[in-house]
């Protein structure tokens, strides 16, 4: 049967530990470690049962508590052999840290009172945008009409019109078909083929080189040309193949 337990939320392992110490009304300087550890672990088990994720800090503290519990079972070393004060009492560091946390927790509670009190006092809202608007620089166009503006623009407009040079820029047109035709033409008298690097006339611009390369690929696809390279770094030769097969492509463009 599903049932719900109300499990108070704790901000951290110290929060939980302090709660347990207060609930059990035990002396913080003489914490019954076994009892508190059992209750601490019990709380974690409840969290687990409720499928709540247990933050790693809680597990670290569980390990610390168990380590202290174990140490307290060991016989106390004679004072002259004690290396540090924790040999006297393994709880010492925990107690100090807890006390420091307790101070801060109490201070936080006090600060909260301050905060709540201050929340009851209101000031003018931060409305910097309004003030910026109020004190903005004067509008340099204040009082001018649309007619004033067009009148001012007219001479500029006329000068601009006079200075305008009309020119039509023709778009260079290069088609794949056209370039295919040129390639076929060049290859027709060269049964030995042409070195790839020399195939294109670079002085005609990049567009022709690109379209020419596309045309070459198309021609290779229909076997109108063959491509041969004798070794990895050797020159690539473009050799005429079934040139007639390329005619259709050339005539299309």
């Amino acid at each position: 049967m599903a049932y719900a337990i109300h499990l108070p939320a704790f901000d951290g392992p110290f929060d939980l530990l302090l709660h347990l110490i207060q609930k059990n009304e035990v002396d913080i300087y003489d914490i019954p470690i076994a009892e508190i550890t059992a209750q601490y672990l019990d709380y974690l088990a409840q969290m687990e049962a409720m499928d709540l994720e247990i933050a790693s800090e809680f597990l670290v503290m569980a390990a610390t508590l168990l380590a202290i519990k174990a140490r307290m079972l060991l016989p106390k070393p004679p004072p002259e052999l004690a290396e540090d004060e924790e040999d006297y009492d393994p709880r010492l560091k925990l107690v100090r840290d807890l006390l420091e946390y307790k101070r801060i927790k109490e201070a936080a509670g006090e600060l909260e009172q301050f905060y709540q009190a201050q929340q009851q006092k209101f000031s003018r809202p931060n409305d910097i945008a309004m003030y910026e608007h109020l004190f903005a620089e004067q509008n340099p166009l204040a009082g001018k009409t649309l007619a004033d503006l067009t009148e001012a623009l007219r001479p500029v407009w006329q000068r601009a019109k006079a200075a305008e040079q009309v020119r039509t820029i023709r778009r260079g047109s290069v088609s794949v078909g056209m370039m295919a035709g040129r390639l076929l033409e060049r290859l027709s008298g060269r049964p030995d083929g042409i070195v790839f690097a020399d195939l294109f006339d670079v002085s005609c611009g990049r567009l022709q080189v690109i379209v020419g390369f596309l045309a070459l690929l198309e021609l290779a696809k229909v076997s109108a040309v063959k491509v041969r390279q004798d070794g990895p770094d050797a020159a690539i030769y473009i050799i005429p193949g079934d040139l007639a097969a390329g005619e259709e492509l050339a005539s299309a463009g």
Partner: protein
Amino acid sequence: MGAEKTRLRALLEALLFVAWEPLPLGRLAEVTGADKAAVAEALAEIGRDFAGCGFRLTEIAGGWQFLTDPDLAPYIEKLYNPRSQQLSKAALETLAIVAYHQPVTRLEIDNIRQVKSDTVLGKLLERSLIKEVGRLEGPGRPILYGTTREFLAAFGLKSLSELPELPEPEAAAEAGLYDGMPELADV
């Protein structure tokens, strides 16, 4: 002389009326062109005159500001329903550590709370309640955090010296720790 005083008072009242933040004495002197002593005197007078009003001249966060009478808060809430921004327990604890131990690193905060504080710190930074005040000269040069003027304003403090005393570490009893080992029954 009397007219000049009256004018300074009026001027200060106007400045404080439009301001949305505490105005430091120095700034008021700078804007009004009066000397600080005269401004302080005028402020004291304004403070007395507004004592019974719906809003009072309040010294806060290193400056002066008109703030409403806290008793009237319910009516302001009725009028505008301003959202109050709550601070979580974790945020208050972290803020308390920063306030009392500043400048302080994230690691020191984590150690006292035994919880990772990076998310909380991020939120406090975002709300300008804390700020980065430098770096610790040491391994990793970790960021040092401190409180801001906004912190003072949010908590109604004139300055950090107005923070309530940190509760005494219960030092007297600590000595008792060495007296006896725990009884076997405790373990």
